[in-house]
């Protein structure tokens, strides 16, 4: 009888050691494997793969990332282009009219502000343009229409006026706020 009681006592106590082990492992996994969510690269964008992509090196310059979501036909049939820089979102709606280029106009305003406070250097090619020490990274979804990438490149190089129906701008090196150091985000195939 005593022996029977001796056997039943340990069964009543729950052994918590394995549970604690598992929890500790999980904590270590999340600490080592993750990064904080303020990182702008966590936006749900699938960038296209390339073989010659290299590591992101700023060479002492600041970096601005323009997230470009896929240009898609919405359920209403109106195309929509969405871009995001940090927490600011810019949206173009439709093919024509003010709303079609509103996002570009807002993006240009943001770039103008960044240009004004950036360190600058004269264009080594002697064009008279003052270039900001900023790398602009276009992080576009693989299925974004190429037209959108073309338009963004024109907006960032300040060669087109989104406030004037995307008409070409008169080039004046003194007033031009061009960003020419541009990176396209990519990934190397074969790496998960």
């Amino acid at each position, binding site marked *: 009888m005593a022996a029977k009681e001796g056997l039943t006592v340990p069964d009543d106590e729950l052994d918590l050691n394995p549970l604690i082990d598992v929890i500790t492992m999980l904590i270590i996994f999340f600490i080592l494997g993750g990064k904080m969510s303020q990182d702008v690269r966590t936006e749900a964008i699938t960038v*296209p*793969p390339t*073989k*010659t992509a290299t590591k*992101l090196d700023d060479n002492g310059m600041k970096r601005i990332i323009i997230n470009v979501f896929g240009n898609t036909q919405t359920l209403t049939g109106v195309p929509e282009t969405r871009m995001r820089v940090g927490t600011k979102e810019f949206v173009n709606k439709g093919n024509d009219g003010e709303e079609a280029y509103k996002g570009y106009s807002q993006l240009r305003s943001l770039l103008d502000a960044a240009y004004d406070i950036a360190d600058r250097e004269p264009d080594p090619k002697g064009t008279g343009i003052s270039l900001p020490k900023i790398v602009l990274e276009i992080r576009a979804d*693989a299925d974004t229409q190429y037209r959108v990438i073309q338009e963004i490149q024109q907006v960032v190089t300040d060669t087109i006026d989104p406030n004037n129906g995307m008409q070409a701008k008169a*080039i004046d090196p003194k007033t031009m706020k061009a960003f020419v150091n*541009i990176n396209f985000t990519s990934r190397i195939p074969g790496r998960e």
Partner: protein
Amino acid sequence: MSGHAEAEDRVNMIPLIDCMFFLILFFMIITKFEPDEKAVASLLPTDKGQMNAKPTSVAPVEQINLLVYPQGVEKGYQPSEYRKQLEELEKSRSFFEIARIRVGGRDPIEINGLALAQRSNNSEQMRDNILQAHAYIKEALNNLEEAGKPRKEQKPVVISCYSGMPWKYALLVYDAVRAYEAEKTGSFNKNTFDLLEAREVSFAPPQIRNFHKNELGNELYTIVNMR
């Protein structure tokens, strides 16, 4: 008395487990796993093209045209007919899936690039797509190589991609030319401004500035009939 002492000796694990659960919850909420992203540099020219055109010679510049347009579009039609073809293609699902890539007047290849937009980074089809485009462009550029000329004096490559095509195709051909130049220059400088010693590779200025659907036929006509 002995039973009381035994109870005090036992450490109460419940608060510890509570803390650990909160820690797990905290890390699960704030953690996101970063994709392994890299970048392809594009140093836009400031002394020519759309930025600041200053022609130095009246002679036409010889260049190699790398063209990207939808599958099923052939040469020899008028812009209005291309417009109709585009409308038909838009209705079919294959419009965004298969691209035709051509170097100058050579025979084109077709790439089914569905895998290029997949989240999985390890698919065989993705690698096949990239290898196919790279092999085609490498062979074409090799045949157009000007013997004895330094890399910078080789004919520039200009990429003309139909504006309605997905971005992945334009970047794929740009990547293929970069890979070719990296191989030719011998050393591939792994920093942002690499390939400065290579020939010039650029995207053609857009055919359409302020987008209008009516101009798409003209754009396709220009690209498909380019050599």
